[in-house]
């Protein structure tokens, strides 16, 4: 028996899935318990991330890939992202999103076009701080909340990687006048 904890990407609580082998004749089948629902499933796989499930006569082709700890499952035109968690990891998630951010990151690799931030400057929530261009599209990176600029770490014309810190924010209470 195997127990897995799968957390849907974005919102949602982790879902516990219990696998139990229940082979019949020469077929490998599983009994799968999700919440209070129990299903009998047969799986065929082509061995390269593709396969199909048979659930009560219904045939469901799927594709699957893994990025880090996240499984991406393609099923009938939709891609579902499920993070494989263990119990320890479960406790530590869920409290990071509400906190104020300490910096503005490049969401994509691209070129910095314009910077509307100078060290020490105060900004409102949603203020356009940096304008970038990526894949020929201009995009505005807005302030996630009101605050004050601590440091500007990019220049117009600069090519930046995804995740690069472009602007850092001063922490609440003690604003540096650097």
């Amino acid at each position: 028996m195997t127990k897995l904890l799968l957390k849907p990407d974005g919102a949602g609580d982790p879902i516990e899935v219990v696998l139990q082998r229940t082979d019949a004749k020469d077929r490998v089948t599983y009994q799968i318990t999700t919440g209070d629902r129990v299903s009998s499933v047969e799986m065929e796989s082509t061995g390269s991330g593709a396969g199909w499930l048979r659930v009560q006569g219904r045939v469901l082709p799927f594709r699957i890939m893994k990025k880090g700890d996240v499984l991406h499952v393609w099923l009938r035109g939709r891609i579902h992202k499920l993070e494989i968690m263990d119990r320890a990891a479960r406790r530590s998630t869920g409290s990071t999103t509400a906190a104020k951010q300490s910096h503005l990151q490049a969401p994509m690799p691209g070129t910095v076009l314009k910077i509307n931030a100078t060290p020490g400057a105060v900004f409102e929530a949603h203020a356009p701080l940096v304008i970038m261009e990526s894949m020929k599209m201009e995009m505005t990176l807005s302030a996630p909340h009101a605050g004050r600029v601590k440091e500007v770490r990019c220049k117009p014309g600069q090519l930046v990687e995804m995740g690069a810190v472009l602007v850092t924010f001063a922490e609440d209470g003690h604003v540096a006048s650097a």
Partner: protein
Amino acid sequence: MRGESLFKKVLIANRGEIAVRIAQTLQQMGITSVAVYSDADRRALHVQVADEAYPLPGNTSAETYLRYDKIIALAEEHGVDAIHPGYGFLSENEDFAIACADARITFIGPSPDVIRDMGDKIIAKEKFIAAGVPVVPGWSGDATLGIDTIKQEAAKIGYPVLIKAAAGGGGKGMRVVHQERDLASSIEAAQREANAAFGDGRVFMEKYITRPRHVEFQIFGDSHGNVVHLFERECSIQRRHQKIIEESPSPALSPELRAKMGEAAVRAAKAIGYTNAGTVEFMVDAEGRFYFLEVNTRLQVEHPVTEMITHHDLVRAQVIVAAGGKLPFTQDELRQQGHALECRIYAEDASRGFLPSVGVLEHYAAPSGPNIRVDSGVAEGNEVSVYYDPMLSKLIVWGRTRDEAIARMDWALARYVVMGVTTNIEFLCEVLNHAEFRAGRLHTQFLDEHKIASAATIPDEALMAAALAGRNGSGASHAMTTEERRVPSPWQSAGGWRAF
């Protein structure tokens, strides 16, 4: 078409799906197709399908697909008779068309004069006014006159106004301004974007028509004085002025309106001496009034829609006309049969503000079946890079009726596998199934005004597949039994995977 007057070798100055699509027609016509490619595109599909392929060192468009000096040098070196520019890149570049002529290489498209005049949205508008085609009220004065003058002009036109790039296209350098206090910053942003995209920061202003439909007519001319239209395409489903779903016929046109608009498009095309393929774009308001928008002097991204309803290969016709031949169809021969629908598949994340998504295509499988066409520029294992447009492919379907075409598209989208980059496939499905879309009540603000909901629930089957696949690699370690090893795990022989 008699073989002797055609080209022997044609270079495709483009990449992605359009380069693949052009190569296919060239090969079918017995013409050798030549691809060019950047470093990043070394293993791209358009390189694999061409008969010959030559490198353009570098990665950015500016150092590769826009370097027409290098492209013409390659064409001369390899005995190329003609160059097809596709869309985007050099397709509407008058200087490139002139440079081709200077090198005695045929540019497959309209004459440099027509490209220049139509590429300048201000001149194009004047020419269409002269041909008696209705246009949107606007102002195209000198933007350097200062903001006060522009403010007066905007007030005369009446808000909201639309700022557009004179050299524009594809929504770049475009801004809607609802109130005077946003005018200066919007003009600045439009100029900056226009300068970056086209190297020409001139902008103009016109009345912003609320909830218009975007209806365009495919036109085609030859060097013997023949000009025809191949009916309309409605491209009202746009996101930030970028078309994402196109169809023909337009649900909004009566036979009378269609005839009137087609006749206006042909009349204007004749007046400017139009040759080869082009598109006359119109806005149609809620009362059925139409206004000239602009002319695209190239093959359009959405041209397969027209091919599906007319059963003519537009690239083939372009080649014939460029070689001096007569149009392979007359207006009387053309019929608009059934209904065609196209969805553009973009590598972008609808849940994160449509940010472009880059990565390796770990899984890629396009749908197939009767009356389904996929023009794809990618294959499994390809990398989608930051350097170029995020459009991966186009999915085009045909049905006897609009409902049949929508049902077929819905079926095909649900069978389109793209993993490794995030795509807009699920978003397209939601739009297609929206009641207002089904009813044909389309306009260019459709996506802003209608909430496109995505189903958040995860089906049990997805959990099952994940659990079965994840059972070996999860934190909950699980030793495989001998018997279980006989069951191939999807993780085995996982070629290019980064995981595990």
